[in-house]
């Protein structure tokens, strides 16, 4: 068999084995269905759920929160990263806050944001943004700082103005590293939105998961988790694609 087919076949086989093993274990070991339902029960719940309007409304809320938070984090992270890389005194002044904020588990701030911004979308967007901010910011700061001095010399010789420097040199050199940060950030934004929904409000997939838990609807709870995983995967893949297309120049290729 070729490497190509193996690379598709093997993961499929391992997943199938895992599911069969799971199903078999639940039946033979007499695990309570409240603790661990068999995969087929989860599948049934999932199929029923995706046919309801309700699920999609909740999913849309979560995606809106995560994506808005993510975009805010990207905007703020890149601008602050650039400003601090360009004007070191700003970084020095901000340093204590940066270190402090980095040390606090940001998720611990979630209840505070609910208190300040209410139970609606806004507080979840803020939580998502707070979590997603750091990977973008620290990668942007690092990337803008490490633009090659020799490359800057070329732009000095060419008498480029600051705007030209920014979009012809700084942004393209920093972009691959920044985009790596955004891959991490989008996952964190999802976590932020879900945790926010756990804590307060009555919308979103996080809320739905808690609601199913309270009703002891365990297969449905698992189904929500599966959907959350899918949404997360979708966002991550989108960003990953974006990164690949932007940093195509890093692999030597004549078609890119």
């Amino acid at each position, binding site marked *: 068999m070729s490497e190509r087919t193996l690379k598709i076949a093997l993961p499929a086989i391992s997943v199938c084995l895992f599911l069969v093993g799971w199903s078999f274990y639940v039946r033979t070991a007499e695990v309570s269905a409240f603790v661990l339902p068999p995969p087929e029960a989860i599948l049934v719940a999932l199929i029923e759920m995706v046919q309801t309007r309700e699920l999609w409304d909740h999913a849309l809320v979560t995606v809106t929160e995560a994506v808005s938070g993510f975009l805010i984090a990207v905007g703020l992270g890149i601008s602050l990263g650039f400003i601090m890389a360009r004007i070191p005194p700003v970084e020095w002044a901000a340093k204590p806050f940066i270190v402090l904020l980095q040390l606090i588990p940001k998720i611990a701030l979630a209840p505070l944001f609910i208190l300040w911004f209410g139970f609606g979308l806004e507080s979840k967007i803020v939580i998502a943004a707070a979590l997603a901010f750091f990977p973008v910011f620290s990668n942007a700061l690092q990337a803008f700082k490490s633009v090659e001095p020799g490359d800057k*010399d070329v732009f000095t*010789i*060419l*008498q480029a103005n600051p705007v030209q420097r920014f979009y*012809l040199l700084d942004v393209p050199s920093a972009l691959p590293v920044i985009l790596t940060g955004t891959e991490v950030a989008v996952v964190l934004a999802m976590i932020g939105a879900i945790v926010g929904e756990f804590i307060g409000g009555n919308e979103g997939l996080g809320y739905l998961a808690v609601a199913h838990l309270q009703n002891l609807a365990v297969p449905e709870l698992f189904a929500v988790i599966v959907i959350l995983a899918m949404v997360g995967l979708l966002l991550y893949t989108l960003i990953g694609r974006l990164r690949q297309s932007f940093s195509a*120049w890093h692999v030597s290729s004549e078609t890119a």
Partner: protein
Amino acid sequence: MPFDARQDRMEINVSGLTKVFGDGPSAVTAIKDADLTMERGEFVSLLGPSGCGKTTLLRIVAGLESPTEGTVEIRGNAVWNGTRRSAAATRPVSMMFQEARLFPWFTVVENVALPLRIAGVGRKERLERATAICETVGLKEFLHHRPNALSGGMRQRASLARALVTEPQLLLLDEPFGALDAMTRDALNIELMDVCARANVTTILVTHSISEAAFLSDRVVVLAPRPARITAMIDMPFDRPRGLELQQSMAFQKMVGELRQKLSEGE
């Protein structure tokens, strides 16, 4: 010759130039008390062993590194005011670095067109001009490649094309062809000499090759290390235009011998 006319032809004036990197016991004197004046259209080579301050001298003239002492003037304008560089004084300067310094996010032709883009030349015109110059340095088949996909020599050609695309009046070249094979090197040297003569370009070339220096230059400046300084300036009295056959002549061989002698005296 009236005084003003002579003043008008004065292109570069380096005087008492000293550069010290760092301070205290770890201080390195990269160049000491260098004087150099060049007329418009003159071709001068800096010849010397590794580490004798050739790149540093070039970078100070280009406005990339500030001098510790001394002055640099380009057409009567001071390049440095203390440690502040004057953008206006260095406007006619184009420089090619020891490394190709191409940008991986642009294709070859976009890299070559970059100086024109920064100068505000429209897309169509700048790509036409960049394509033309790429063809003269033998990059015709590689226009739309990424620099990463090029060999070291090809990258160096692209870098030369980028330095020439603005039709500069003052060209600073830091070991431009070090990475090239002898034949390509000859071809590009002829091309370079042609461009410089045609547009009356003033050129400073850093090189390790004695015969390259003798072949291309009106004058060769010999530097010596520890302490880094200028030890000799020798005119190359060969008629122009020069062809490769010049290198076979007795007079040329004699000049190369003399340069080698001066170089070893500095050691």
